[in-house]
């Protein structure tokens, strides 16, 4: 029943290098691997920690937690973020919650079950060892956060409350109203500020990392631009950690913060770090649709809306009548029709794609025909207005605030949007990239989530990495330090700084006729069209060509006003967009080479007869780790093995 077809020779776009392996992951029973690793890792004597310096770029859950913990352990930490305060990192926007295998509900949850769900949810493209460790550590995260004063939701008896989230059958999600990410981040931020006061951490806000400094095969520092004065600063240390978040903004429109970027990871990639699985992107079905071409970002609404809302489009293409004038028998409740068992509750990717197909057929509603209805009329009739208000009131208010429509009266309009990127820099079990001394944590690395992330698991990963994993594994590396001090006139430093300065000067001197944003929007449209919810060989090939053309035009025709020596937001964006072009191209190449559908990557050529994603485990059960190679990146495969969880195909019919 496979319909895989190969027409052109896609390998003209890339080369293939030797396979790679995660040499740090211990073998043995999976429950003991993390302990084994911690036991075998070298330790750093507390008295020596002061002499060891750590650069951490990013102050989200992954970076903020790590900086606080390493500072407290006694290392000399320098932390960086592009916002004006570490508290504003994008983690703050997470709404739903954070998973942990506490089994407070006595509903059969366990570390093993969370591990199992993660591997299965990741569509068998993640490492078992990593996923298991994540589940193990999840328990400590909740303890840590509660001790910091994170105000999780509680029951009347004063104990912690849980909810079920993201389609799993157990209640293991801890939450703080719709602001879980905010509360967790503020907890980490406060711990971080405590270390600042203690003198162990220096925070450099409004600093953007623009280059990685490699000396003698080790990552030794960064070049950062002071975004207020424009000064190009050199910061060196014994080790560099990137915790710079995801790259969903390559699509221009996404649920990510406006400043989210790939610059830090992409610069490291150009310096030799492998980029893992760049094509895996998660698209969330319930976002507020685009209202016009001025749109700057998309807003996510909780998935829980699908519990009671019914999704439909008019049966007739191009039907312009308002929703209330379309009679019942002219509406198509397509999810209920196609997936009678799960109905409106099919997984994110299926719901997203189904909406896209309806809109492609001209049945979309709202501006530009890019939207489907999410209707609560039945729910209100069945449950009563008050119940619906109590359950979803804040989401309805948010919708009303943004769209100016009253969702109690007219159905909401929703459309899918890019939300999370599973890909990222390749790291081993220690979270170290293939470059010595370059560690990568949180959404910025590719690990743990496989081809698809479960709801409420990204926060878990960020904090697991930041509080518990990195602080242990980084010591193994630092035990060999301190390394020889690097002076500011070291040739590698001078060269890195020069490269940054040259690039900035180039931007400022092009003085063309198109704005940075207009390029970013066009790049985003290409990515969304050809490397979005559904990808085809033809489309991806076309996209690579289009991106290359657009990139060439950008370097000739972009207009960046102002000077470097001031707060210059256009210049900041220009640098980010320039890197997005290159990343977008690699994403398309990765998507093109992976001729299977798995998790957040759907190849139209690889589906079952009823439109389900079809994996090809014999051929593609590996991590694609890409080495930078200019126009022709080099693919290294890290084969994946499953000892504990049996590889199965999923079905939602």
């Amino acid at each position, binding site marked *: 029943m496979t319909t895989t077809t190969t027409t052109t020779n896609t390998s003209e776009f890339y080369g293939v290098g030797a396979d790679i392996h995660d040499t740090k992951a211990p073998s043995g029973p999976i429950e003991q691997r993390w302990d084994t690793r911690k036991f075998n890792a070298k330790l750093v004597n507390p008295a020596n920690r002061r002499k060891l310096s750590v650069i951490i770029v990013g102050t989200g859950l992954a970076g903020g*937690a790590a900086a*606080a913990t390493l500072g*407290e352990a006694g290392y000399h930490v320098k932390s960086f973020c592009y*916002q*004006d*305060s570490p*508290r*504003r990192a*994008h983690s*703050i*926007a997470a709404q739903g919650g954070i998973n942990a295998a*506490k089994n*407070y509900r006595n509903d059969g949850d366990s570390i093993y079950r969370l591990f199992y769900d993660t591997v299965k949810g990741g569509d068998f493209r993640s490492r078992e060892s990593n996923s298991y460790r994540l589940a193990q550590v999840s328990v*400590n995260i909740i*303890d*840590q*956060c*509660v*001790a*910091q*004063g994170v*105000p999780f939701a509680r*029951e009347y008896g*004063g*104990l912690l409350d849980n909810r079920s989230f993201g389609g799993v059958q157990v209640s293991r999600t801890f939450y703080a*109203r719709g*602001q879980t990410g*905010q*509360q967790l981040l*503020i907890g980490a*931020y*406060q711990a971080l*500020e*405590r270390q*600042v006061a203690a003198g162990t951490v220096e*925070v450099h806000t409004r600093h953007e990392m623009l280059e990685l400094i490699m000396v003698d095969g080790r990552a030794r520092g960064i070049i950062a631009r002071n975004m207020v004065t424009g000064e190009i600063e050199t910061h060196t240390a014994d080790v560099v950690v990137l915790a710079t978040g995801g790259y969903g903004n390559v699509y221009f429109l996404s649920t990510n*913060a*406006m400043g989210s970027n790939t610059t830090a990871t992409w610069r490291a990639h150009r310096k030799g770090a492998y980029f893992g699985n760049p094509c895996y992107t998660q698209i969330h079905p319930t976002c507020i649709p685009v*209202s*016009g071409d*001025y*749109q*700057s*970002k998309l*807003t996510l609404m909780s998935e829980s809306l699908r519990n009671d809302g019914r999704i439909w489009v008019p049966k007739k293409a191009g039907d312009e009548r308002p929703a209330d004038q379309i009679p019942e028998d002219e509406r198509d409740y397509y999810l209920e029709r196609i997936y009678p068992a799960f109905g409106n509750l099919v997984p994110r990717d299926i719901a997203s794609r189904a909406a896209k197909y309806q809109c492609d057929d001209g049945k979309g509603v709202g501006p530009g025909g890019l939207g489907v209805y999410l209707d609560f009329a039945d729910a209100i009739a069945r449950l009563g207005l008050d119940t619906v208000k109590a359950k979803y009131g804040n989401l309805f208010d948010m919708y009303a*605030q*943004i*769209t*100016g429509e009253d969702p109690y009266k007219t159905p909401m309009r929703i459309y899918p949007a890019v939300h999370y990127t599973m890909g990222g820099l390749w790291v081993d079990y220690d979270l170290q990239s293939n470059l010595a001394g370059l560690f990568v944590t949180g959404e910025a690395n590719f690990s743990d989530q496989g081809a698809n992330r479960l709801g409420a698991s990204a926060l878990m990963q960020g904090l697991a990495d930041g*509080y*518990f994993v990195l602080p242990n594994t980084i010591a193994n590396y630092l035990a060999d330090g301190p390394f020889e001090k690097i002076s500011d006139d070291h040739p590698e430093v001078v060269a890195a700084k020069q490269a940054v300065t040259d690039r900035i000067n180039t931007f400022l001197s092009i003085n063309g*006729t198109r*704005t940075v*944003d*207009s390029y970013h929007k066009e790049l985003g449209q290409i990515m969304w069209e050809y490397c979005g919810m559904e990808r085809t060989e033809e489309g991806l090939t076309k996209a690579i060509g289009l991106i290359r053309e657009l990139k060439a035009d950008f370097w000739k025709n972009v207009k960046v*006003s102002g000077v470097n020596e*001031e*707060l210059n*937001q*256009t210049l900041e964006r220009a640098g980010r967009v320039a890197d997005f072009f290159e990343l977008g191209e690699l994403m398309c190449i990765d998507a093109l080479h992976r001729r299977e559908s798995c998790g957040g990557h759907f190849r139209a050529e690889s589906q079952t007869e009823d439109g389900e994603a079809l994996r090809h485990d014999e051929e593609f059960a590996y991590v694609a780790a890409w080495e930078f190679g200019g126009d022709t990146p080099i693919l290294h495969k890290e084969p994946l093995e499953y000892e504990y969880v049996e590889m199965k195909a999923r079905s939602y019919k």
Partner: protein
Amino acid sequence: MNITVRVWRQKNADDKGKMVTYGVENVSKDMSFLEMLDVLNEQLTLAGDDPIAFDHDCREGICGACGVVINGQAHGPQVTTTCQLHMRSFEDGAVVDVEPWRAGAFPVIKDLVVDRSSFDRIIQAGGYISAPTGSAPEANNLPVPKKDADHAFESAACIGCGACVAACPNGSGMLFTAAKITHLGLLPQGQPERDSRVIGMVEQHDHEGFGSCTNIGECTAACPKGIPLDTISRLNRDLLGALSKGKA
């Protein structure tokens, strides 16, 4: 719709700054306020002018980065963040004045961008619970009455935007400071450091040059997260308690 915006333009901290008038045409009612500024900035860039600098990131009302004074009101006419304000709140042909937060403790960096790092330093001075990583007891060993938990949450919702300071006629940072005092002071975990926290944070608040609170309440009217006014009274009560124990 077409509108006129008068924007505070100031090249850098040393520049004197002035209001400059621009026209923006074909504004859609569904645009957010910041998207309207985006459109204006695209115009300015193409015309060879310097685009208007303003802080923003999430555009979802949660990061606290955005914030300008619109027609004299912090975050504009609705009780929300600037990024969540939409142009449908304005009339066609309206003249909209846009200015940065004004406060001695928030120096202007450029145009509408101010330096709010004073808030971070207030947190450094005690706005935390010392819980070294790994030392935490089992989470459910410490039940918190739901009422306290909910109340703590209400105060923890502060996004650190600074609208309270911009709206307060005294340029006081009391609501921000009090929100943190209340959040941590209501939880059992927060008790051991309760006295030192309020002393440290109030000292730093003053040190940063914020004004004193005369209980005017404009701050709560502007606060996009509805931080309640009694938090300030709680801070006063806590400080009084700490001082009377001779903790200063």
